[in-house]
């Protein structure tokens, strides 16, 4: 039975490490602040969850597991709150560039000059 638990926990730890690295890469690759928030969400939810799950399986039925569960619950309660506070603060700040939207991304390369395009270019310059 122990080999099964060990294998499961190892798998959870490896998958967690993978998602954490992917989230970190997303932090660097995404084009603007608001899309980066989504990448940070990957590390906060599934990355942290899988790593803590792997540790819980290693810990067995002890107080350590309860503490790890508390850490997990706390992380999952606070990470949406912190994300929401960050996005709300960023949106209400007039000096912060507005979110890059779908239309902007797909209209930036063409150099014609409608009002929509100039806004997209303004965002590009502000970056």
């Amino acid at each position: 039975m122990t080999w099964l638990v060990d294998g499961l926990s190892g798998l959870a730890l490896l998958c967690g490490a993978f998602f954490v690295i992917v989230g970190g890469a997303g932090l660097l690759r995404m084009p603007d602040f608001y899309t980066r928030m989504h990448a940070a969400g990957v590390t906060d939810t599934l990355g942290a969850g899988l790593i803590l799950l792997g540790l819980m399986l290693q810990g067995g039925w002890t107080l350590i597991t309860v503490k790890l569960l508390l850490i997990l619950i706390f992380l999952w309660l606070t990470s949406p709150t912190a994300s929401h506070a960050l996005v709300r603060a960023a949106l209400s700040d007039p000096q912060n560039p507005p979110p890059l939207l779908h239309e902007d991304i797909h209209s930036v390369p063409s150099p014609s000059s409608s009002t929509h395009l100039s806004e997209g270019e303004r965002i590009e310059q502000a970056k």
Partner: protein
Amino acid sequence: MLRILGLWSFYAGLWLVLSGYFDIPLLLVFGALSCVLAVFIAWRVERADPEDHPLHLKVGPQIILYWPWLLWQIVLANLDVAKRILDPQLPVSPTLITLKPTQRSEMGQVIYANSITLTPGTITTSLSDGILEVHALTREAADSLLEGDMDRRVAALERSNA
């Protein structure tokens, strides 16, 4: 009085779990006293900033069934976002949408907004006067929110007499 007792038992349970002392009487007495102090501080804070007691949740027991579903949605959304991050083309189409949640109580709307934010790929940017504003990483994520599956499930959590 019941609330104070409930809060105290909650703190006492937390103290026991975190400290791990079950058999040293002196420490147990200190723990009980510190819980009394914590209840007193909570009572003072509540007088300055009144808010609903967390034990008076206005949602039914169906939330036990909602959590696994939400967990599964989080896993699916995570896989989708991770796939897009690893794609060399970076196929994102960020979108801002507004939603009109159908939950009647504030608690239900907050649960809905929090579930949206907890799911990667969608973040609630504001919730005021029953209007939700959501920033989505992709068009597809925004569309699936507009379909309202999660909205209906959260609305079903609310008790009819709430």
